């Protein structure tokens, strides 16, 4: 079976890449583009670890065919703080996204496996609901599972990030 040449726009950069039609966006991001910030948990849409933004909306990359992600803007966790990625994680010297900052400051990260997905879901939530209530935050995370934190610190972190973003505006 033949691969097809497609162009994926990821975090503002165009990548020409040959894919099989049955390859998911998750596989292509991780295995071909080596953007391993996006995780693979369940592979069936339940856990949210694979969440990326497509044209600003959160989707499960494990249920998205790469071949259908042409002509759209894909944002992964690496796209939120490109400087920090370039500095190989030297967080002292670079600016993070306010949501990432709040996750760190509020202790919302333990093992960290769910964090990229959680942060991408938060990004979508705050894009359409800049001042979410606690109930709205929890509903906004309905598609993200965390086995470590018990969620409360994640909810705190998002509320904190929302406040920071609104203050800055």
């Amino acid at each position: 079976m033949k691969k097809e040449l497609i162009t994926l726009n990821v975090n503002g950069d165009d990548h020409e890449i040959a894919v099989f039609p049955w390859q998911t966006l998750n596989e292509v991001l991780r295995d071909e583009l080596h953007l391993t910030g996006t995780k693979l948990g369940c592979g069936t849409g339940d856990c949210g670890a694979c969440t990326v933004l497509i044209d600003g909306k959160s989707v499960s990359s494990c249920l998205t065919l790469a071949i259908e992600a042409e002509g759209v803007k894909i944002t992964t966790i690496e796209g939120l703080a490109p400087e920090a990625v370039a500095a190989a994680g030297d967080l002292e010297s670079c600016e993070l996204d306010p949501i990432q900052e709040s996750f760190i400051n509020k202790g919302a990260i333990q093992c960290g496996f769910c964090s990229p997905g959680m942060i991408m879901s938060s990004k979508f939530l705050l894009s359409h609901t800049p001042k979410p209530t606690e109930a709205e935050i929890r509903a906004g995370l309905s598609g993200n599972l965390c086995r470590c934190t018990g969620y409360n610190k994640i909810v705190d972190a998002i509320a904190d990030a929302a406040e920071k973003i609104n203050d800055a505006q």
Partner: protein
Amino acid sequence: MTLPQFTYLAPTSLKEACDLLREHQGKIKIKAGGTDMIVRLSHRAVKPDYLMSIKKIPGLDKISYDAATGLTIGALALLRDVEINEDVLAHAPMLARAAHQTATVQIRNMGTVMGNICNASPSADNIPTLVAMNAVIIAANGNSEREIPIDEFFLGPGRSALAADEIATAIRVPVTAALTGTSYQKISPRSKVDIAAVNIGAMLTLDGAKKCSAVRISMGAVGPTPLRGAKAEAYLVNKEICAETLAEAGRLAAEDASPISDVRASREYRKLMVEVLTTRALKEAADLAAA
């Protein structure tokens, strides 16, 4: 898990899509948002030679309202679109509620309401309200179009009245009569984002006094297809709406339910919940009709 291999097709017209369905009959599956289909592929529950995306067919994503024909929801309208669309919120708010209570944020950003209907799961969130509102499914085969009343659309779990070469292009929801209210009630083992253990849609019209002049009740996850609460409907017409008649309607609805026991709930619990949720749905619909 890596998906099984298939040839990917992405036709750009309805005619082309239906021709492909005819050409590859038995070996082809339709994909819209893919939130059911990709999971089924991943589980090897289906192994089609061809996977045909309908997302490149133009014009299927529209939602519109017309005072004569009612609400039209295109096949590619996302659950999220229906959840927040102003026409839906104004003319059929319970469809927005049902869409909102379907799955998770990410799945609603990917999945379509039509996919939820065509998947024909007895517990699907968007079916009971559409049945209650007497919706019609528009089916096209590239040469002609027909209207399938939603009462005739579901044949069994995963089986619909669509022919092998048909694509469902839109859902049409008739204009609701005056003094009419609707409701969607759902219960699931974990939270609202979970698959329903029981879900109920209702539409009720009042006659100007407190009497019910028309009512439709749809019960999900309590039979191989969504079931109508026929006994409860027959009982309620011409009755005054009050706590007693609503409770009796709930009891009669449970008589018409034929649930099984599974991981989500036992048969007995489902029967009880049909009673509770039907009474609750009729109460809300009657209150909204009077408002």
